[in-house]
Structures are given as structure tokens and as C-alpha cells.
């Protein structure tokens, strides 16, 4: 037991987190503006879950003839054909929109396209096919974003109930910040946004909330302990106290998901990427969005608060 890492982490760190917060505020505002700009200009690259259309995975015995696929699809008269390499060199994803609005016709058109491809490229196989009609995709899109909104509201209610209004506002601002930055980055990098991404975003929200809870929990305890100390100092103290937990948990989660990011293949990449980014941003926003909001807004430190919190948190 000579090696535990905890021995090398300083027992008492004295980092002045609060001093950096004006810079962080500028950084966050810039990042939020950039995210909105990315969303407004390039926009999210919606997957077929949300956009509707057809995706066929095609595998050829040799390297995938991407250019010829494109020509073949165009000659078959489908709308908006896209071809991209995927995974191994012999794999390709063929995406297109069907002609006409009838989803049943779209499903049947896929069989025609597959037959056409098989005639042009002997030996081609189609391991997966997805067709999503416009009606379903519209509903998925709406329900996906509705889920995000409800999640945020419920989290707000929970934090407000467990901690207080100021903390609730801080948390909610931080979550908007996290979600906006995450989808801003996804749109800037043109990573496909699908139903799985909504799941990833919800997980990011969950993780981020988790961080806020731990942050506020420690802060509440110290506010109770050091009644006369200025808020900024208490925040610094709390953050330093929980620094090693932040480092160990964050690093563990990043290591675990990092493996998935690089090794799990293209189908899980968007999910893994969103979650990894979400862990980073969730940790950052706890310290530099949620807490500074309290600095600006102030936080109730009255006798009532102290007794009521001690009643709820320390039974």
C-alpha cells in the first residue's frame, strides 16, 4: 500500500478558483455565442431518425467504390444521395431521400435501389437498412427535444427543492450552458445528431447535475460551518476540499468512456463523443457557471437556512 495516488495529491490545495471566474465567464459567453452561431449557420447534422430518409450500409468484397455508388444512386433517381466511407475500407453508408412523400413507397423503393446496386456491383451485401418516414421522424424530433426540456425542468425542481432557489438557478444556467455547448460542438464538427444523441445529452445532463449536487452539498456544509467567512472564500475552500474527488471521478469516467471513443467503431462514436465532452463541460460548469451565479446573486445564509438544511441533510 505504498502506491495509492491519494498520497501524491496534495492534502490541502489552495487554488483560488474564484479569482479565475471573470475570465471563465468571458470564455463561457464566447463559447455560448460561438455555439449559437454554429447552430444558426451550419446547423445540426440530423440523422435519419430526425430527418427521415433511407440509410443502407453496403459492403463490397474489395474497397468500397464510393464515387461509383454516388453515380449509381443518382442514375436511379433518388433525391439528395450521399455516400460516405464507414468503418473498414470496404464499408460504405448510402443515404438518400425517397421521391414522393408516401412512406410505404419509400420502403418499397429501397428494395428497388438494392436490386439496382446488386446488378451494378456484383457481390455487394447490405448488412443493415433503415428507412424512416417523414411523419415518424418529425415525431421523434419533437419528442426528443420535449424529453430534454422536461429533464431540465425536473432537475431544476429537484435542485430547488433540495438546496434553494439560487442554487436551482445556478444549476439550470449551467445545464443550459452544457447542453448548448455540446450541441454547438456537434454542429460545428458536423457529428450526426440522432435519437442516441438525445440519450447522450440526457446522460450529460444527469452527470452534470450529479456534479452540481456534489458541489452544492459541500458548499452548504461549509456555509454552515463558517458563517462569517466571505462567500468567495467558502467557495474556494469547498472546491479545494473536493478537488481530489473531482479529479479521481472525472478521470475514471473519462478513462472508461475514452476506451469506447476509440475502440467501439463508428456506430457508438457520436454517443461516446457526446458523453466524454459532457463530462468535461459538466465539471467545468459546476465550478465556473453554477457557483459564480451564486456569487453574483448571493445566497441565503440566515439562521433559518442553516437550521433547515441541517435538518434535511444531516438526519
Amino acid at each position, binding site marked *: 500500500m505504498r502506491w495509492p495516488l*491519494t498520497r501524491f495529491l496534495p492534502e490541502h490545495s489552495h487554488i483560488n478558483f474564484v479569482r479565475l471566474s471573470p475570465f471563465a465567464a468571458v470564455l463561457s459567453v464566447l463559447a455560448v455565442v460561438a455555439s449559437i452561431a454554429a447552430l444558426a449557420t451550419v446547423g445540426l447534422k440530423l440523422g435519419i431518425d430526425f430527418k427521415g430518409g433511407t440509410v443502407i450500409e453496403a459492403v463490397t468484397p474489395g474497397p468500397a467504390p464510393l464515387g461509383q455508388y454516388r453515380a449509381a444512386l443518382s442514375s436511379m433517381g433518388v433525391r439528395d444521395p450521399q455516400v460516405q466511407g464507414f468503418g473498414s475500407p470496404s464499408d460504405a453508408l448510402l443515404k438518400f431521400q425517397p421521391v414522393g412523400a408516401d412512406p410505404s413507397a419509400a420502403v418499397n423503393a429501397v428494395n428497388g435501389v438494392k436490386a439496382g446496386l446488386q446488378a451494378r456491383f456484383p457481390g455487394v451485401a447490405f448488412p443493415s437498412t433503415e428507412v424512416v418516414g417523414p411523419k415518424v421522424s418529425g415525431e421523434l424530433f419533437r419528442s426528443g427535444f420535449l*424529453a430534454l426540456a422536461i429533464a431540465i425542468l425536473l432537475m431544476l425542481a429537484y435542485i430547488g427543492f433540495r438546496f434553494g432557489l439560487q442554487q436551482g438557478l445556478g444549476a439550470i444556467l449551467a445545464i443550459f450552458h452544457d447542453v448548448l455547448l455540446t450541441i454547438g460542438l456537434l454542429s460545428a464538427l458536423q457529428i450526426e445528431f440522432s435519437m442516441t444523441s438525445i440519450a447522450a445529452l440526457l446522460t450529460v445532463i*444527469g452527470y452534470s447535475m450529479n456534479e452540481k*449536487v456534489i458541489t452544492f*452539498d459541500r458548499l452548504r456544509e461549509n456555509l454552515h460551518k463558517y458563517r462569517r467567512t466571505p462567500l468567495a472564500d467558502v467557495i474556494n475552500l469547498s472546491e479545494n476540499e*473536493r478537488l481530489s474527488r473531482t479529479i479521481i*471521478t472525472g478521470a475514471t469516467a473519462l478513462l472508461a468512456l475514452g476506451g469506447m471513443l476509440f475502440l467501439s467503431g463508428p456506430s457508438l462514436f457520436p454517443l461516446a463523443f457526446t458523453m466524454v465532452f459532457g463530462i468535461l463541460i459538466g465539471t467545468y460548469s459546476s465550478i465556473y457557471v453554477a457557483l459564480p451565479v451564486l456569487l453574483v446573486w448571493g445566497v441565503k445564509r440566515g439562521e433559518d437556512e442553516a437550521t433547515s438544511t441541517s435538518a434535511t441533510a444531516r438526519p
Partner: protein
Amino acid sequence: MIQPRLWKIALVTAALLFGVVFTLPNLLPEGALPGFMPNQKLNLGLDLQGGSYLLYEVDTDALKQEQMTNLVEDVRRTLQDAGITFSGLGQAKGGVSVRITDPAKVDAALDAVSKLAQPVGNTPIKDLTFVRAPDQSIEIQQTPQAFQASVAKAVDQTIEIINRRIDALGTREPSITRQGTNRIVIEAAGLSDPEKLKAVIGKTAKLTFQMVDDAVPPADVAAGHVPPEDMVLPSDDHISETYVLQRRPVVTGEMLVSAQQGFDENGQPDINFRFNSQGARRFGDATTQNIGKKFAIVLDGRVIEAPRINGAITTGSGQITGNFTDDSASQLALLLRSGALPAQLKVDEQRTVGAELGADAVRSGTIALAIGAGAIVVFIVLAYGLFGLFAAAALAINVLLIVAFMSMTQATLTLPGIAGLILTLAVAVDANVLIYERMRDEARAGRSLILAIDSGYRLAWPSIMDANVTTLISAAIMFQFGSGPVKGFAWTLSIGVLTSVFTAILVTQVLIGWWFNFAKPKKLPI
């Protein structure tokens, strides 16, 4: 506190036993376990084992259209029977409207058609409303309750009929579930080419026998002048002529009691059918009265054949000879036997994953999981030494419990679900980190070893609970709003949260208690 309580040891042992027993079927070959042991394996999603997912929608617009067409015919018959003359009968404003010629008879007409209304289910609500409009016309509307009830009934019937059709097909049973008000989800595991399934499911198979109206000159048909009680339908071979038929069918497919594929005298495949008594009587009457005329056999709005009636057919059986192959004839016979769908079905979504691709996904998911779990264990042991090892043991039990729960409940494990599992493990470790950090705080504050360990657990608990409740909230929302793979993700996450709170707290507590009694340490090793 430091001496682990007996109930804690018992609980952990029971959980461990449960985990092992329910996880075993996943590790051993089929049939290796005695019969009394649970033998359910993890239920892999379609993205992991390959298969087809089909989302059908019952076409409610078409259903409404059909009901209105029938209503027009009912109104026509009622008014004719009552001897009331009328004009302008047809669909208008989503309902049916008719103008009564004689102003004195409007009340009588209203009376007559009002009898068409039926109560909706067991409620006092009627399915139709009648409004007397100005200029002697009557407007009839279907109530929304009646329409909803008819949609619900149509979806129920559709599911029943699809079940019958698939049973008759004899392939591996796909799962058929209702989604929302008018959708049906069909999931066929292991089936990577759903075309045959779709051919059987998607066809409405509505069969009618209708008399051909020869009295209408072809020129009128071409000009679109057809009497209101007639309709024009194309022939099945897409090329030859169209037919003018009486709207009211003589016999419908519901009156069939059997349909089998057979062969005609030329050895061509045909379909032998038999009517029930009602159908036989109606068909007998029609053929007796119309010798020399033609009748048409209509399937899904197309005329399969239109033979001339050479003599009365009172046996109640007959043959359909179309342009069939062996396959298409036996398939049609199957569809006719299982009944027509009450409304047209449309495919809204189709996802197919080949078995090989599924196996690839399992492989990459397993690798990601192994790397993730490995990284967590190495890191936590590096961070906390012996206590890290305890956390790792708790993690192992956690994985065991998650797999056991998922096998037991037959919850679907999807590829995103594996990602959820990895994240769950990372967050599970967080509980231990919180506990250990609290212990260090307390030890640093000068508490005795026992007290430090004890308050580590006690003080960390509120944070752990709050943190996990937030995760449960987001999982619940995913479950409510997500589609298949996302639901799987949410389920894995929820199970993981519950088991991880249990293992991170209780398992490590028991292990640390044992270690304390065994090693008699003087200070906290972290």
C-alpha cells in the same frame, strides 16, 4: 458499525448468490444447467442480434373515408326505403350531406336517417349527429368518440389478424405490440430479410364479390359518367379494361369459412373457397337471379377475374382462378383465411440489421466494456490502494447484479445500453470516491480511525442519494420518450443506478469491516 452487522453480510451474500445464479445461463452452454435453475439469457436488442423492426400505421384517413362511403350508401338505402326523394347526396365537410326534395318530408327524412345512429360501446354517446341545415338539407357527422372507438377497434383487429397470418406462416414468432393510438410495432429477431413478412402483413386482403353493371355504355365510363350506385375498378393485370361494378357487394371475404390453394383442370394454381351459410345463400340468390350476367371477384380494389354466371351456384363453394403462381395462390389463400385488415397498413419505419453486423456490435461493445471496466479498476486501485481493491470488488458484484437483473427481467440490452453500462460503472465508483474522500477528511480532522470510517459512509450518503436521483430522473424521461435502443439505454442506466448504490455502500462496508477486524490497522490506509 465497524464490525459488519449480520444482516449486512447476509444481504450481500444473498445478492451475490442471486447475481451468480441469474448470470450463469449467459456463460454456460445451453442445457448445461439443471432444469430448476433459471435459464434466461440476456435479451439482446435487434441491433446486437440482428433482425427487423417494422413500424406500421393504420391508415385512419382511409378508415374514415371508408366509413363515410358506407354511410352515404346507408343514407341512400334508408331514404329510398322510406320513399323520400332527395338530391345532392354525398360527402361534405368531413361528413355526409343530403338535400330533401320535398320540404314537407324533411322531418320524416330526419327521423328515418336518425335510426342509423348507434351507441358508442357501452356509453350513452351516439356515433352520429344529425343537423337540419337550411335549404332542406340534412348534415350527418360522425362524433369524435365514435371515430376514436373505431380506430381502436381497427388496431385491435389488425393486431389479431396479423397474429393469425404470422402463425399460419410458421416462422419464428415476431413480437407484435401496439404503439400510441394507431401504430403497430413488429420486431422479428434474427430475420434480416423482412420482405416475406411484409408481404404477409401489409396486404389488406379485402375480398368482395360484386355484380358487373353491363348497362353503362363504355363511352360514359370514359367520360366519368357512372350512376351513383356504381363504381369503376381496374383489373388486376394492370393492362386490360376497367370494370363498372355495383357498389354494394354480394358477398364479402368475412363470409368465407375456408380458402385453400388448389389446381384447376388445366393444372393452374387456383384458390378453392367455401362460404358460410349467409354467404352461400346470398351468392346462391345472386347467381340464380343473374344468369348470363357477369360478376367480379375484387381483391384490394382490383378485379382479379369477372366470370359469366352460367347457372345458379348454390353449393356455397367455388374457385378463384387468377394469374397465380403456386406461391401467390397459397399466400392469398392464407390471407383470405386469416381475414382482411379493417384498414390499410402503411410502413412508416423499417430497420434491418444483419446477424453478422449484430455480432460485430456485440464484439465491439464487449471490448469497450472490458476496456472501460479495466480502466476503472486500474485507476481506482492506483488511487486508493487496498480500499480501491474493495471498490473494484464492489464493482465486479455490481456488474454481476446488473447482468442478473437484466437476464431475469428480460430487459433488452442494446448497443447504447452497453455505453450506459460503462457510464454506470464510472458513476458507481464515484460513490466510493465520495465515501473515501469523506473518510480522509474526517481522519485529517483528527477523528479516530473507526469514527472516520463510520462518518465517511454517513456523511457521503446524502450526496450519493442526490446524485443518483438525478440520474434516475433522466433515465425515467428517456424511458418515457425514447425509441427502442434509447429505452434499452435508460433501462440499463436505471438498473445500474440501483445496484450500484447497493454495492458501493454495502459491499465495501462489509469488506472494510472484515479487513478492520483482521488487520487491526492503526491509521487509515488512504
